[in-house]
């Protein structure tokens, strides 16, 4: 049994409202919900329903209700009908017989609205069983969407969520000691490892992973130092946690000895299981690939994909968008032409200033040779320039870009800053 429905709570002259009554019932039932139409629901999941109903009725009688009724059933609609129309102080619907229980009752017990009630009268459907026996398409054609909802109730199929899911407290663990104070990180790690095992176990049991957790150190002087952690994904893996903690402890300087450690989960999310493609050859290894990517993200690396704008300067055109480790489950579509090798531009981490010998060509200074870090390089060809300028709302720029071929065959992108008159190599083709 799941639901206990209480009705006939007070006579019409009763002064107290149903809402005032509900808190008293919470002393007996873990979760109670009051409805304005004079019903009180009690959550009896995991409890002996009959004794609970008796206790609640006794409470109601003591409160002043003359003839309260209770209905017990696995579905809310059956419990409600049992309570309101059952014909006794406590009516218990045996498990699995909710539909049979509703069958002989008039359709009116399902509380259809006026329009629907008139339609039902016109069709001659009187009992719940008459309605339940129809198929949904026939009901939908004749009675519309509201009729389908009523039809589901007549079949004891009640989708109402009377009680919100229980919010569990996020797991935490702590350890304190008074006889000594710890300064050795290794011994601290030993203690933290035990706490992490407890917390990660609780997370796993709940099918969750932490997206943030905090390690707090209670110091001998009374102060508390907190260190938050944000794993790259919802994570309940003790090894990952300990690696993050170990890295943090290497850099953390505590002002005093430690007399206690507290580990708590700040935020958690459901552990995601991605449905992969069983025909993908990488499917079998996707899980380990995702975990490996998560580990390198935790180490400070980022997995990125470019988001290109139409900025004229190629170095400012791309915004790198960080990707989650679940990227490995994606299966990019690549056509035959996409795998053709093509030389692409690689920008240098820092542009290399160069000294350039030039010649005039149509008003431009065209590079003939340049001297960089590795000496002089003769140029076979310098095509260009591509003139780009702008930056009205940011740092102004005006560049003349030359695609130069050196005598050793290498192809470099040489840039002349038209504002400063300086030259630099900004990239190479590779």
């Amino acid at each position: 049994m799941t639901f206990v429905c209480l009705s006939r709570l007070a006579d019409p002259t009763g002064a107290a409202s149903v809402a005032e009554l509900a808190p008293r019932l919470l002393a007996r039932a873990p979760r109670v919900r009051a409805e304005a139409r004079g019903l009180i629901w009690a959550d009896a999941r995991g409890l002996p329903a009959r004794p609970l109903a008796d206790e609640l009725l006794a409470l109601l009688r003591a409160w002043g209700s003359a003839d309260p009724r209770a209905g017990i059933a696995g579905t809310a609609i059956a419990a409600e009908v049992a309570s309101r129309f059952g014909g006794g102080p406590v009516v218990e619907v045996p498990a699995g017989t909710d539909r049979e229980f509703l069958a002989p009752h008039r359709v009116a017990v399902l509380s259809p609205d006026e329009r629907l009630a008139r339609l039902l009268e016109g069709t001659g459907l009187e009992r719940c069983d008459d309605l339940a026996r129809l198929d949904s398409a026939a009901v939908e054609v004749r009675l519309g969407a509201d009729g389908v909802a009523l039809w589901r109730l007549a079949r004891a199929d009640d989708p109402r969520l009377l009680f919100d899911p229980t919010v569990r407290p996020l797991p935490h663990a702590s350890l304190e000691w008074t006889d000594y104070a710890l300064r050795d990180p290794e011994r601290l790690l030993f203690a933290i490892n035990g706490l992490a095992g407890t917390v990660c176990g609780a997370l796993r049991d709940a099918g969750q992973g932490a997206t943030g957790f905090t390690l707090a150190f209670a110091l001998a002087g009374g102060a508390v130092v907190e260190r938050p952690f944000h794993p790259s994904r919802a994570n309940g893996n003790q090894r990952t946690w300990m690696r993050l903690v170990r890295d943090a402890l290497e850099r953390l300087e505590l002002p005093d000895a430690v007399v206690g450690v507290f580990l708590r989960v700040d935020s958690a999310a459901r552990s995601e299981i991605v449905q992969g493609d069983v025909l993908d050859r990488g499917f079998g290894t996707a899980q380990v690939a995702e975990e490996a990517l998560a580990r390198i993200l935790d180490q400070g690396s980022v997995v990125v994909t470019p988001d290109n704008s139409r900025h004229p300067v190629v170095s400012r055109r791309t915004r790198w968008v960080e990707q989650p480790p679940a990227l490995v489950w994606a299966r990019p579509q690549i056509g035959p032409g996409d795998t053709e090798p093509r030389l692409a531009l690689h920008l240098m981490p820092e542009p290399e200033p160069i000294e350039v010998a030039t010649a005039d060509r149509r008003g431009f200074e065209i590079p003939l040779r340049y001297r960089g870090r590795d000496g002089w390089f003769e140029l076979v060809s310098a095509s260009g320039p591509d003139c780009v300028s702008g930056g009205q709302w940011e740092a102004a720029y005006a560049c003349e870009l030359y695609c130069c071929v050196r005598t050793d065959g290498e192809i470099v992108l040489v840039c002349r800053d038209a504002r400063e008159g300086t030259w630099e190599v900004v990239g190479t083709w590779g």
Partner: protein
Amino acid sequence: MNRSAAVRALLASRFPDALPAAQRSWSSVPLGIAALDRILPSGGFQRGRLSSWLPALGSAALLRAACLHTVAGGERAVWIDARHTVVGACWRPAPILVRPPSAVGALRATEELARSGGFALIVLDGAEPETTELVRLSRAAREGSAALVLLSRVTALATLRLSSRPLLGDYVWRRSAVGDADEVEAVRVRVDARASGWFASETISLSLWRDDLRLSVETGRPDRRGERR
């Protein structure tokens, strides 16, 4: 045609990327360029082994093509961009692109990914590992059966050493838009493959990526906007 052959043919036509169980583990990761795969001792980069490619014209382009071919075959490829030199405008986002925070971070990431066993081809671009680091990378590649390719000047411990050399005399040129100077349209590179008791080479043509996004109205005139007076 018997029934099993018919079923195999049907599966091959309906699911071209699916692989028969007997072929699940290949001993090498091919580059996807037939001419180059022919000159490699095992028809591609050996799984579980370290390979090196000297940085030169064409090396990154051919490795990118190998990554794309690996992904097209349903496996995973990673490009670890240690120096953050990859240009987003010419990157085809099919291989996973990793940008580590430092050179050491790049080596750590490479070791982690190689050991995981989830990646067929891993390219480490721009890091110059020491000998001890090479040993670790080599072990990680063996444990994870990954084909690990270093795009660096370090060739120690590499079972396959590749280098590419531009052949300037064979470049394809065209006149520029304003008829001033020659623009290079395609290059020809010679790729040498060396392994224990093995040497082979091949020449291959590569086209150039060009930035098509040009805003200059008049390319024949100097751009003086923003110039200091």
